[in-house]
């Protein structure tokens, strides 16, 4: 599903990734680890198509319509409500039975009662839950998550654990974290960046 060969990325003179080679098969769960500044986010941005490699090749099988992405920012409009945000993305991704799908996700992620609140009024943890809803709204084949536990409380983290466990084998998962022990209970492949 993802095949990288001698992948490199530089920003100006700064070398961020150099000669990275790896493969991710359909249904795999790959955890990308490494300290701050090791290039985890850059690698994910390359995989999702938001950045272009400086050298090497990167083949991503699914079209961008089949990729879900959770970045550092929640990628939601602060002046729109939770429902309006998800409705916007649902329309752009042409999610079938959009309203039912949104309602089901809001229940599952504990956001139903806040659905008419603007995103600007949400806590960091609620925003992260909303961002997760947005990322999985269109049932992506490839889900790419950058520090997904960031900002989540114990309940939120447990919820995400359950979600990730439930997705194993059904979706291809690529998760970047500086804290690999957080995902340790979930059996996964590792890609360590220095």
């Amino acid at each position: 599903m993802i095949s990288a060969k001698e992948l490199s990325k530089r920003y100006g003179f700064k070398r961020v990734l150099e000669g990275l080679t790896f493969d991710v098969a359909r249904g795999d769960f790959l955890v990308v680890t490494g300290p701050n500044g090791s290039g985890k986010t850059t690698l994910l941005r390359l995989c999702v198509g938001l950045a272009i490699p400086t050298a090497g090749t990167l083949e991503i099988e699914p079209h961008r319509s089949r990729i879900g992405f959770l970045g550092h920012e929640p990628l939601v409009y602060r002046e729109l409500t939770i429902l309006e945000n998800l409705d916007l993305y649902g329309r752009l991704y042409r999610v079938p039975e959009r309203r039912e799908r949104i309602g089901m996700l809001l229940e599952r992620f504990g956001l139903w009662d806040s659905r008419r609140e603007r995103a600007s009024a949400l806590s960091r943890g609620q925003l992260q839950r909303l961002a997760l809803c947005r990322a999985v709204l269109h049932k992506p084949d490839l889900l790419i998550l950058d520090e997904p536990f960031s900002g989540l409380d114990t309940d939120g983290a447990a919820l995400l654990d359950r979600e990730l466990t439930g997705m194993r084998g059904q979706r291809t998962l690529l998760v970047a974290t500086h804290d690999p022990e957080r995902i340790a209970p979930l059996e996964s492949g590792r890609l360590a960046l220095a």
Partner: protein
Amino acid sequence: MRRYFGDAAVLARKDLRLELRARDTLPAMLLFVLSILAVFHFALPSGSSRLAELGLLWVAIIFTALLGLGRAFVAEREQGLLDALVLAPCDRSTIWLAKGIATFAFLAVAELVALPAFALFFSPVGWATIAGVVLADVGICAVGTLLSAMAAAGRARELLLPLLFLPLALPIVIGGVGASVVHGSGRYLGFLALYDAIFAVLAWASFEYVVTE
């Protein structure tokens, strides 16, 4: 084609809704255009020619548009949302089209106030001027939305947008002023329409390269 315009409509509706909620852009444009017309009213010596008055109207329109264009991508820039729009499976030029439609709407509202105000401070405008303003708005929004996206991605964006936009807006000013002051303004209106067509196609075709790294 239906899908393309459907996506653009969804995105434009989102931009209009954001403005209704935040009221960041339109009130500022209205206040600015009224203020600048008032300043021109007192700055222009009494007995000045109608040519000078109409020239100042176009200055007011261009700078009001610049104010709106400067805020076109603020939400996307501040919250990193351009990534989300770029990742969505719609044609990336729909982002340009939707932003252009929203900016056109704000500019049109500002001009609905500005033209009567101009008539109050100076003298009423004719149909040729109104047609020129409508055609100029299309060109301003087509070019300006592309440049606004470019500026949003760069540093010193407040400086970059006027530096890029004003030279490209010169033909709009020439066409607009020409349509306003010359008898038989068809030539200038045709010139504005040609400008709109050429720059709309160029902006539409190049927008994808502006929003991807």
